[in-house]
């Protein structure tokens, strides 16, 4: 990469833009994605798939440079050994069974018959399709097709897994299994790049998030860090205690507490503050002085859903 040392451990975007004719895909994106689970979040057309396609070398940037663990994406013979991509396209080569689908594309890696066979069988078992291995993929249900795509993207044991809406069409059990698998891969130090519309699942699994809107990266990093950067939206903190009215009266004397809302059950408060650090100090003093019994103190809006609402807007829950 020009001028800078090339990272062999990260995925790096340096001033990357991609246009489809007149239409903007992504614009001037500079990112560094470390190992672990990274979620791409944004509404339809925000540039998530463009970012993933660029990473996998399926499209080329109009401007800028990309390196995936030091490898430029226009060298598929090197890149695709370390990268697996589960795309959003629900399409498969005609006439192949699940086994043939995995086996045939593994052959393109140049592996021996025996290795292709053993890897195919392991991958089929991993995604729970061993019994359906000899059935044509065309006869699979949507969930099974999603699982065979996941198996195909990961059967060669890549270091970088790019997964576009990987939980689509999976039943709750399969979703839980898939998430556990992503977490295992993330814990092993692999890069797992996931795009998902389901924010509470993103929240559960992500080590870091990249928020995209209209082709721009709106925020990136660990979700708490991103939330702290959103200064214009007061932080929400939930406190459960025995005398919430007393606590509210004490806290509202301070400038940085802008709102206190009593819980319907009368056993807690939802507080909004512009300065979380000062607030926690103040809270400690107030609790000690009033002799309150505190059950819990927890941030109420440092999840992906809230950050998404603040930065991008939308319905929440699912995009």
């Amino acid at each position, binding site marked *: 990469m020009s001028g800078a040392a090339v990272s062999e451990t990260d995925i790096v975007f340096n001033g990357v833009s991609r246009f489809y004719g007149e239409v903007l895909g992504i614009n001037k994106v500079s990112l560094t994605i470390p190992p672990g689970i990274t979620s791409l979040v944004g509404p339809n057309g925000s540039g998530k798939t463009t970012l993933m396609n660029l990473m996998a070398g399926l499209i*080329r940037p109009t401007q800028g440079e990309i390196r995936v663990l030091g490898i430029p994406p226009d060298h598929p013979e090197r890149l695709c050994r370390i990268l697996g991509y589960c795309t959003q396209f629900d399409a498969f080569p005609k006439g192949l069974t699940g086994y043939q689908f995995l086996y045939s594309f593994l*052959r393109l890696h140049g592996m021996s018959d025996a290795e292709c066979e053993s890897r195919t069988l392991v991958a089929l078992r991993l995604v729970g399709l061993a019994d359906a291995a000899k059935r044509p993929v065309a006869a699979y249900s949507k969930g099974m097709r999603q699982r065979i795509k996941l198996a195909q993207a990961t059967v060669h044991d890549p270091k970088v897994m790019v997964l576009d809406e990987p939980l689509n069409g999976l039943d709750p059990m399969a979703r839980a299994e898939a998430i556990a698998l992503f977490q295992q891969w993330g814990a092993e130090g692999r890069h797992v790049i996931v795009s998902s519309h389901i924010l509470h699942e993103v929240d559960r699994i992500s080590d870091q998030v990249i928020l995209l809107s209209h082709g721009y990266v709106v925020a990136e990093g660990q979700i708490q860090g991103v939330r702290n950067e959103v200064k214009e939206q007061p932080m929400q903190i939930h406190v459960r205690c025995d005398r919430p009215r007393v606590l509210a009266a004490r806290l509202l004397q301070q400038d940085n507490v802008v709102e206190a809302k009593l819980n319907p059950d009368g056993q807690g408060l939802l507080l909004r503050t512009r300065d979380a650090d000062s607030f926690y100090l103040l809270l400690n003093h107030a609790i000690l002085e009033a002799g309150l019994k505190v059950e819990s103190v927890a941030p109420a809006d440092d999840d992906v859903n809230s950050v998404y609402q603040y930065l991008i807007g939308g319905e929440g829950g699912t995009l």
Partner: protein
Amino acid sequence: MNAMWMRQLGGVLRLELKKTAFSRRGWWIYMLAAAPVVLMLAHWLTEAKIHSARHSIGEDSVIFAGAFLFFFLRGSIFFGCMGIFSNLFRGEMLGKTLHYYLLAPMRRELLVAGKYAAGLAVALVLFVGSTVASFLLIGRHFGPAWSDYLWHGPGAGQLGAYTLAAALACIGYGAVFLLCGLLFRNPLIPAAAVWVWEGLNPFLPALLKKISVIFYLKSLLPVEVPAPPPFSVMVIETDPTPAWLAVPGLLAVAAILLVYAAISARQTEIGYGE
């Protein structure tokens, strides 16, 4: 070529053959290959039934040469190769499956080579097979005289020349249409342009004639086909290219097109229109 490349090439070839050989989508290509055989079969049966030698073997060989030039080369093989080779990449794009290939850790040049080899294998089986079967059938009604013509006369040499021309047509048109499928969203438009160009070949000046596949193939045909009036007055006669030049010339044209296709494949992006 190293062992890894060979395995990858073999992988593409196997996968393509598994997907495409005898697929239902290719029914019209099989019909194109079968049509000349059916035509010659009908000719044989008709001639055998009426028990009259209305044509001599010599006349039938001219009929076959005409059918081969106008029906096989410009019809069956041309459109058959268009169907087979332009779909190698364009079909994957339309089926939204090209990314599986592009995400394989192999050089794009090998992908082009593997797909071309698979297409060529299918085209050769269909159209060389069809040519041989048709030739053997056209004079079948002459009985022992036809066998004698085949094995002791010029028949075997003619069959060899037609087989070579059919194979070279598959090689040449295959390269043309593979490139069209890579470069154009709708390969029918360039295919139509190539078809018109090939059809105009007899009327073109000598220099332009040489920029075509049909010119070299025509030079290889063992029996000359006279142009019928009124076209005969418009034909510009040129000396045929000798076989020693026509064969490597056509192979060289195909090789150049394939090299260009391989270079283009390195720049190929997925664009499924979503």
